[in-house]
Every structure is written in structure tokens, then in C-alpha cells.
């Protein structure tokens, strides 16, 4: 708890420190390559009968939106005088982003990753090691993201004086959900300006996938006060909700406490956290950021799910139609958008957050295509 108070205190100072904010902006531009483009997906639009734009976070350095938060928090850690960074990773995108930023800023870096995820996201493991990070395989529990977070928290409480825990999503105890959202909201700020420039009006729908919920909150945040913009968060349906093998917190879960946050959690009657399933490691998590629970209860954002199978076919479709290989996580958002498009009147403006690129998924993709 004292470390969280220290973090909250330092973050306030960090926000008001002009020279650091300038440094952050400069690195966002030169290191990450922001702003990322808002790309009109012409073929996909014709196919769906709507105007579909992709917010190209897959073009950000290291291939996903995760770098926005990793860069911000690493600067914050340096500002706090910490020399060591630890992080958890599911798909490996947050791990790679953290490793890259640590390499650049000269910070020691350890990444915790579930054994199952290490197997299914091999390319990212190699990248992290190349970037100088130590990758620790976590073999407890379900051996995925949840357990990697457990292990990172255990490390943090043991080494709190030297170490900053660079949490990768809008999860965990306060102030993490706020800090991570603030480093990700640049996605929506850019997208809002870009769509106004391209279309002269706001979009009808925003669609993003939701694991912990950082890319979606990043896109949604700037539009929350635009009542005409409807928002949809897409959870991982796995093998289908009825199968019990999924990560749909808003259908199978209820309020609970996990990793220092009260939010919707997949759990049994007693409160033991249940194992989740998704083909995409980044969405395979039993809880969801508390702000999403709030937006769900307000009914400001609608939460839906698509199955592994639907995500896989969207993955291929986007590759073939637009020449863009999406991350399996982002493919969930694409899959829902295509399904949803059929129910809409023609030519609605839809922005899909293409949160990451799919190179990391190619080995898993091959397996999925065969089965």
C-alpha cells in the first residue's frame, strides 16, 4: 500500500512537470511513431456496406498500442528514481513494448509470462530476450496472464524499493487504472481529430476488443462526452459462452475482488477465480478493468463477445481484403464489426481499434486453421 501511495503522489508531480511532458510528447512522435494513421478500409467497407476506419495502433513501434503506456510509465519510473522494471504479459505485446522502452531508457527489465502463453506467442518471447529483458516463465495456476500478474505482484512486494511494476492494462489497484488509461487516451484524441478531418463529423460507432481493457478505454475515453457516438467492447467468447471456456466477464462473471480491484470477475460460488479460455492470449483474463464495469453499468458502452472461430475468420479476411494482418485480439473487434454491420443501415461510420499486428500469432494461426 505505501508503494501505491508513493506512485499516486509521484504521478501527480509527473503530470505537472513540463519538461517531462515535453520529453513524453517527443518520444511519442519519434520513438513510437505517433500519430498513428486512421485508415479508411475501402475493401472491407464495400464488403460490409459501411464506412469502416481502422485506427492503426498496429503501426506503433513494437506493433501494438501497449507501447503508449509502457513509454509513459517507464518515464514515470525513472522520475521516481527506480532502476528496475517488472511487468506481466499475456500476448507478449506489453512485454515487448516494456522491454523496448527499458532498453532505450537504460532500465533493468524482468517480464513475467505464463508458460502457456510463452508457447503460443513464441515470436514475442524471442523479441523480449533480444531487447535485453529477462523472461520468467510462470507455471502456477492456469499458467496465463492472471498468473503472470500474481507473480509480478509477488516480485513487486519483495523488491518495492528499487522496482516499479509497469502494469500493462487498466487493471490492478488505484492508481493503475487511471494512469494506464491516461497514457492510452491519446488513441481516441487522435482518432477524434482524424475522423473529423476525414468525414467532417463524429463516427456512429467505436468498436474495440476488451481483455483488461486498455486499448478500448484508450479509444473510447475522448468520445465519452459525445452522446451520439455509440461504443462496443468485444470480449473473448472462446469456444462459446455455453461451453464455459471463454473470457466473457459480463456474461459469466459477477462482482469480485482480484489483483486489488473490485470489478466483474469470472469465479465459482466460493470466489475461487476460474480458468478462462481464448485463442488470443491478450484477452484471456478473468477480470476486466473497473472503469469498464462502470461504463457497463451506466450502459454507456455495450459489451458483446465473439468466438475463437469468428476471430480466426476475421483475421484471414482482413489480411486478404486490406493487406493488414491483425493481432488475434484485434481480430475479435473486426469480427464483431462485420457481424454487426449486417444489422445496420448502410454507410454508418465505424472506427475499429486495430490494437496490434498479428505477426506474433502466425504459429497459433496455423494450428487454428488446421483444426
Amino acid at each position: 500500500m505505501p508503494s501505491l501511495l508513493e506512485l499516486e503522489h509521484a504521478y501527480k508531480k509527473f503530470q505537472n512537470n513540463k519538461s517531462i511532458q515535453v520529453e513524453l510528447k517527443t518520444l511519442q512522435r519519434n520513438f513510437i511513431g505517433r500519430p498513428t494513421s486512421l485508415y479508411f478500409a475501402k475493401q472491407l467497407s464495400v464488403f460490409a456496406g459501411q464506412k469502416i476506419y481502422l485506427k492503426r495502433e498496429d503501426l506503433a513501434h513494437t506493433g501494438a498500442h501497449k507501447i503508449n503506456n509502457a513509454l509513459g510509465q517507464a518515464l514515470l519510473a525513472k522520475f521516481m528514481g527506480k532502476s528496475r522494471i517488472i511487468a506481466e504479459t499475456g500476448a507478449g505485446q506489453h512485454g515487448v513494448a516494456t522491454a523496448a522502452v527499458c532498453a532505450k531508457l537504460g532500465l533493468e527489465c524482468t517480464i513475467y509470462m505464463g508458460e502457456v502463453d510463452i508457447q503460443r506467442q513464441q515470436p514475442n518471447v524471442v523479441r523480449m530476450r533480444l531487447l535485453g529483458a529477462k523472461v520468467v516463465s510462470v507455471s502456477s495456476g492456469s499458467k496465463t496472464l492472471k498468473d503472470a500478474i500474481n507473480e509480478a505482484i509477488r516480485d513487486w512486494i519483495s523488491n518495492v524499493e528499487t522496482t516499479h511494476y509497469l502494469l500493462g492494462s487498466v487493471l490492478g489497484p488505484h492508481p493503475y487504472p487511471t494512469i494506464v488509461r491516461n497514457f492510452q487516451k491519446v488513441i481516441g484524441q487522435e482518432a477524434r481529430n482524424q475522423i473529423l478531418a476525414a468525414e467532417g463529423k463524429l463516427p456512429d460507432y467505436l468498436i474495440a476488443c476488451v481483455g483488461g481493457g486498455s486499448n478500448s478505454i484508450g479509444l473510447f475515453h475522448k468520445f465519452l462526452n459525445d452522446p451520439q457516438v455509440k461504443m462496443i467492447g468485444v470480449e473473448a467468447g472462446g469456444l462459446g459462452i455455453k461451453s464455459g471456456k471463454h473470457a466473457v466477464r459480463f456474461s459469466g462473471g459477477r462482482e469480485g475482488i482480484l489483483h486489488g480491484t473490485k470489478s466483474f470477475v469470472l469465479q465459482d460460488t466460493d470466489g475461487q477465480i476460474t480458468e478462462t479460455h481464448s485463442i488470443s492470449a491478450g484477452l484471456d483474463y478473468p477480470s476486466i478493468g473497473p472503469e469498464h464495469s462502470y461504463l457497463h453499468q451506466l450502459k454507456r458502452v455495450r459489451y458483446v463477445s465473439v468466438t475463437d472461430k469468428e476471430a480466426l475468420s476475421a483475421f484471414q479476411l482482413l489480411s486478404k481484403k486490406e493487406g493488414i494482418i491483425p493481432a488475434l485480439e484485434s481480430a475479435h473487434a473486426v469480427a464483431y464489426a462485420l457481424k454487426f454491420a449486417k444489422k445496420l443501415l448502410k454507410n454508418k461510420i465505424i472506427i475499429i481499434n486495430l490494437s496490434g499486428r498479428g505477426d506474433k500469432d502466425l504459429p497459433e494461426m496455423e494450428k487454428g486453421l488446421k483444426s
Partner: protein
Amino acid sequence: MNRIKTTFENLKKNKKLALMPFLVAGFPNFGQSLKLLKTLATEADLLEIGFPYSDPLADGPVIQRADQVALRAGSTTSKVFKLIKELRRTTEIPITVLVYANLVYQRGVEKFYHDAKVAGVDGILIPDVPFEEMNIFFQVAQKNDVANICLIATTTNTTRLKQIFKFAQGYLYLTSVVGITGARKDIPQKTLSYLKQLKKQTKLPIAVGFGIANKAQVKKLKVSGADGVIVGSSLIKLINKSSKIDFRYLLKFLRRLNS
């Protein structure tokens, strides 16, 4: 709650340290777990019993695995209460439980504390609730006359200590290391000096846990003013060592720690 108080008072009169073994309820299964606890009760001064949990954040690998074994063997919250109830029939030793917040929350805070009281529990420690969020648990603990046990570490500064003292009952649980449970060889010097300082600030007994595994550590803690030691991981390691549990050896191990 009085059982805790009386026990520490009696030990103090005899200048003895409380020996407080920790075991996971339902580990390795219900029957063996009950037998283990009954056996340890004959040598221990207080029993600490852990509710097995899927995500025990404050625990090292040994207790994590014990939690998983217990859950796989079918342990549930209701069965843990049943276990304690049966244990209570045979002993008047103080019993405290360690339970993660979500298990309490899902049963309903009121119901959890009520069931604990009925089962014969004297104190409850929730390791993942800081004092900032403790009020609701504290009030229900008061109502049910169950001691609210608080965790502190050498990183807990004076300001936080003062706040924690408002909620702390039974005994203070000081972790010997900053971090998670698991047997270690020594006690950090920092912990010993922190303990001496802490002793001056509170009348509550202080029990030290996390990493306690040998006699030398216990001796150092006693000299620095500890009133009790909690022994978990090293005990569970001994249980895991052979396929058949050697109950006599466990008792010998405990006795030797505090000789």
C-alpha cells in the same frame, strides 16, 4: 478472542514464545488435514489456518501448491468451516484464519464472520486488504467478537502504524521479510531492530511470520522481543517430503524450534 489474550498472557508469565503453526485447510485432503491440525494442537500455542485460494498473492510457491492441492481435493469455504468446527470439539487452543478478501466478499462479509465465530474461530487475517479498506471487515469482526489481525512489515512507517493500531486486535503479525511467504535461513537485521522499536509502541503481542524455518531464527526473534512465531512453509515442506505423513516428526520439529 479471549483465547488469544489468555494464551499470550500465560506465555508471557512463563517467559515463553508462542509457537503458531500455519496449515492450509484441506491440505492434502480433508481427513489428513483434520488429523494434522489435531496433532499440531497438542504441541502448538495457537493454530493459524489458511483458506485455500486460487490466487494467493502473499504466498510463495510452497503454500501456493498446498492451496492447489487442497482445492483439487475438493476444499470449499463451507468445508473449511466444517473442518474447524470438528477441530474445535477436541481443543481449546486459539484458532485464527488467513483468508483472501474475495472469499469473504463472495460469502458475504456478515455471513463469513458469523460462520467463523460459530465454527470456533478467534481471529481473522485478510492479507490483501489494507487498513484504508478495512473498516467494513473491522466492524463485522467487532460485532462477532472475532479479533481483527493485522499484517505489518518493516516498510510500514510510523504514520501507517498509528492507523493500523486502531484496527489491530489479538496480535500483530509482523512479516520477517518484505515480500511473500517461504522458508528462509536467517532473519534480516532490519527486522530485529524494527521489532524492538515496535515493541515500545504497542501492548499487543507481536508474532513474526514469513520465512521462519530454524531454531536460530526463533532465538533471535525472542531476544528482540517477539511474543510468537508463525511457521508455515517449512512445515508444509516437511509434510510434502514423504508420501506418508510422519506426525511424530512434525511435533519434534516444532518442539525443537522453540527449545
